[in-house]
């Protein structure tokens, strides 16, 4: 390592090769991924997010929701994701195709949200999500800054939250979600990865002994 230029060259080459292998290698494999056209349904998947949902993703990112929620369902035999109702299949790269900044996250202080809008038997209602965001719960913080409390002038707003108990506004007032709250909820309910891509089908058939148990 006495030869300075050679040493520096070695450093850069080592680092560049590793970066190229991992990042550019993955890019070579997935960079040209296209949506899947289903001839039976006559449309392609994943669908593009609505404008409101695309804006909501930016709210999700700037509040840092990803520090407690992942958006990546693991395959049924790896963890309890399926049993928890987070999704029947694992998330695949195609699910994130149209996301400007995928929020796959790294911590599960709260539940996974990859298929939040596709939960069974039915997805949570917008009102329930708005209520949680406004009032919080024992385990979820409240974000009152996403809402506006104002005096009712004339007709009450159709968007006003139906609140009761301690979180209810003073009489003659109403709590309405701001635009950010509306886009955030639109985004969350737009998260839907129920469509079965060919690559998401498990390679291994369910083992026979499971059937035997029943």
């Amino acid at each position, binding site marked *: *390592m*006495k030869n*300075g230029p050679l*040493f*520096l060259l*070695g*450093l*850069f080459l*080592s*680092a*560049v*090769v*590793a*970066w190229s292998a*991992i*990042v550019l290698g*993955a*890019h070579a*494999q*997935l*960079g040209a*991924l296209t949506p899947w056209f289903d001839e039976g349904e006559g449309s392609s998947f994943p669908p593009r997010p609505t404008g409101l949902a695309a804006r909501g993703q930016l709210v999700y*990112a*700037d*509040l*840092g*929701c990803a*520090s*407690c929620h992942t958006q*990546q369902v693991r*395959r049924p035999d*790896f*963890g*309890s994701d399926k*049993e928890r109702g987070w999704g029947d299949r*694992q998330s695949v*790269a195609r*699910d*994130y*195709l149209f996301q*400007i*900044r*995928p*929020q*796959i*996250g*790294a*911590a*599960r*202080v*709260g*539940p996974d949200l990859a298929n939040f809008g596709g939960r069974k038997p039915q997805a949570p209602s917008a009102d329930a999500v708005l209520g949680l965001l406004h009032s*919080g719960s*024992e*385990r979820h*913080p*409240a*974000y*009152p*800054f996403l809402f506006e409390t104002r005096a009712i002038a004339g007709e009450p707003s159709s968007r006003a939250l139906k609140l009761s108990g301690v979180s209810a506004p003073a009489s003659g007032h109403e709590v309405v979600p701001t635009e950010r709250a509306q886009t955030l909820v639109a985004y969350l309910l737009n998260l839907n990865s129920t469509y079965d891509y060919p690559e998401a089908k498990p390679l291994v058939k369910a083992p026979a002994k499971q059937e035997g148990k029943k």
Partner: protein
Amino acid sequence: MTSPSIQAAPSPGDAIDRHARGPLLTAIGLAIAWLVLSGVFSLIAAIQLHSPAFLSGCEFLTHGRVRALAESAFIYGWAGGSGIAVTVWILGRLGGNSLRAMNWFGAGNAFWNLGIAAGLVGIATGDMTSFSFLQLPRYVQPLLVFASATMGIAGLLAWSGRRRDGTFASQWYGIAGLVLFPWALTAAQISQLWVPLRGVLQAVGAAWYVDAVVFLWLAPLALASAYYLLPKLNRGVLPSYEAAPLAFWLLVVAGTWGAGRHLIGGPVPAWIPTMAVVGFSLLLYHFSVVGLNLRGAFRAEGAEAGALKFGVGAYVVFGVVAFLGCFRSIALRTQFTHFASATDLLFLYGVVSMLFFAAIYFVLPQLTGRPWFSSSLTSGHLAGVKVGIALSIFALAVAGLSQGSMLLNPKVGFGEIASGVRTYLLVNTAAQLVLLASNLLLLVNFWRSACTCCGGAEKAEGSVS
């Protein structure tokens, strides 16, 4: 390749250090101020983990933002700022000439700190990027690249203009850390923020950057300090030194192959997590050699040696934990849990910070020409951080393992998980409080030590904290 393991005897310190004193003291002082600020954010985040309502009504301090603030202030402000300053000083000493381009260093450091300050304001107001370790908003990133490169020039000049022909392990690691970081940050920000990759590829790039910060930047800078300090403290020869070059190149070559350890079971090609097992198997050699080379730390005595010992021990433990975490069966239980935070903490605090503390305790008297203001503040600080780090890592690791096994059981709801780990999270909050209080001792001690020597030159640091 290289030569003897006893470090070069330094020329008279004063001549080397005179031009360097102001810029280096300012850089280290600002870094300590960031450490304290980061401690405040970490404390808030720790409280929010067991009491989610805490400060959540304040938009600037949602849990996600506070974590990003704590992480960015810590990595860039504290670890980066102090690591670059200490490494430049070490390269100057080993080069044997007085440091050149220190005005460049000073200017670079000013922009570095301004960039971080602007970036933190950006995160608090909603511009965080949502990539771990790369949370500072896009608009300050180019500034950080130029600022860190500018600071590194002084180190590079000291190395290329060295008096002796041979080089030491400390110099290889120091130069690697200084030159690879600006490149890694450039590659990451282009592929993540300016011309983003498509979809899930961003997650791959982000995972690579996390490991680049760990293995191409902070670990080399921290090892530069460790390899420099140990022969100074116990005046001995490093054992098994002939293995050190291979260990160094393994770190540089294979350090980032392990990026897939963050993506196990995720929506990425399966070879990426598999490559992590390969990478970390190679790195095991690196960790063993570093442990062997630096095992003398466990016999050395003194305040710096105490921190050095902790840092070297933590580095080897971190290597083993990270290696085990690459396996799917283990990741199944630790991934997405507080255990991951414990591993990060083990590296960022247990390894990097402890080694930089050791270096700062060694360097400051050389720069100022007089001992530290108070030796009881020194021992209080080091005792406090050791307790705080150990307690926090233990609490988060146990909480993570218990959270992990509860997550595997679909019948256990999130409420039950939260109440199950609450005790450990409370312990973690207490540990964060201890860490914050200890680091305040360091700030006070540094302030008094630096100010008795150069009067008002350190005024700047107070305004940040």
